[in-house]
């Protein structure tokens, strides 16, 4: 089921991309225009999707359920928090929060382990990159 959905997705995606590439222009006076290569690639994607769709599907892949699913979603949530929060809260705070989310939700550590590990890892990464290597990690509204 998933495979068929994905194959249909390839066909649709490839087609849409091909239309867009067509609008960029195929061939101009100086040879290929901006759209030619993407057009060819899009057609290949759609074509491959069609071929795959016409094949008998193989065994259904095992998608995560139950605990596994929650853990996967937990990691994704952690990364979303990281990406969304960094520009506003700065690296240190966001990473501390993210680490706690990950350690509690995904790993089910105790609060003590979570907070201490979060603190240690955030601090060491901040020190390693921010101080030792001199990289500018985003700072929050309170300056660090």
């Amino acid at each position: 089921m998933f495979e068929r959905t994905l194959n249909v997705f390839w066909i649709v995606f490839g087609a849409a991309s091909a239309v867009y590439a067509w609008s960029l222009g195929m061939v101009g006076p100086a040879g290929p225009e901006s759209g030619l290569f993407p057009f060819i690639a899009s057609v290949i994607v759609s074509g491959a999707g069609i071929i795959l769709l016409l094949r008998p599907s193989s065994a259904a892949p095992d998608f995560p359920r139950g605990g596994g699913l929650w853990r996967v979603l937990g990691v994704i949530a952690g990364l979303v928090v990281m990406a969304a929060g960094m520009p506003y809260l700065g690296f240190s705070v966001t990473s501390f929060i993210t680490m706690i989310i990950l350690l509690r939700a995904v790993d089910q550590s105790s609060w003590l382990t979570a907070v201490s590990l979060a603190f240690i890892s955030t601090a060491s990464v901040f020190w390693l990159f921010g101080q030792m290597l001199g990289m500018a990690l985003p700072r929050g509204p309170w300056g660090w």
Partner: protein
Amino acid sequence: MKWAGIAYALVIALLSTPAGAQSDPKAELAKLKPKDFPTQPIEFTVVYPAGGGMDVSARLLAKTVENLSGDRIIVNNRTGGAGMVGHSYLATQAKPDGYTVGVIASLLWGDAMLRAQGRWAYTDLEPIAYVNSDALIWVGSTEGPYKGMSIKDIVNAAKEKPNTIRVAIVPGSMWEYILDQIEANSGAKFLRVPFQGGGAGITALIGGNVDIAQGFFSEFRGYLEGGKVAPLAVASGSRMDFLKDMPTFNEAFGSNEYLWQLVRYAVVPKGTPADRKAYLAAAVQAAMKDPELIAEYRKQGVFFDPKLQNSKDLAADLNAYADVERQFYVKTGRLK
């Protein structure tokens, strides 16, 4: 005894007056430092990749400013989209709190006028100090069918045999615009081979894959010394000190419109507090007077535009240059 005391006091007084004392740029700068600023490193944003011409200028500047001010400066390369990503960041996202200084080039104007689509204008960045200028130079190879020819000869050859002389360009900026001008004025037609930067074009020239390359002095200095390239003409108002025999385009063609220079200057985002802006401006300007820095820059082959160096209102003078560019875009139909 009393006279000795008075004489002693007079001598001390004389030695402490400005006339007697050496003015120390570091001390002068320290006086302008606002309270609680800076408490963290200041970022010098460069919108081009590390190691390139702009990056080298910025890092030399950062080193000098750090020395003079004692503040920590970190050079940060925000690259992508041929500078567009970094310019947009500076104009729309960078916080105007004095911790971000953009060390940029006048390619900003092209991005703002042609590509920003109204989201920001180059006036969103306030100039605080002029750094240097680099003029676009055409170079030919010392081998091949066009060796030894002057710029006028080459343009004539391009007129006689259109679409045979290969010129390296970087699409969408001055490398292309100057060709538009030359072709419009002389009827010549060159074959434009696109590259990602001036340096790549010069590499192609040495390898015999193009006949003419365009770039800045620092990009081909090594080859010049090695006898591999021959400079043809420079797109500035007057001849360059380091290549006195090379004519300007304006000289060669009796015109005054072949002026294509990269102007490098420092900016802060609009809305930066006045005292911090003044401090940063003073810091960069003090660095620009540092003789070591000036010597390093001269080695890069940049020149210092006197009008901008002694400018009383840097923003206005730069805007005047930007307007000239705007008129070019309007005239060639790139801008409505």
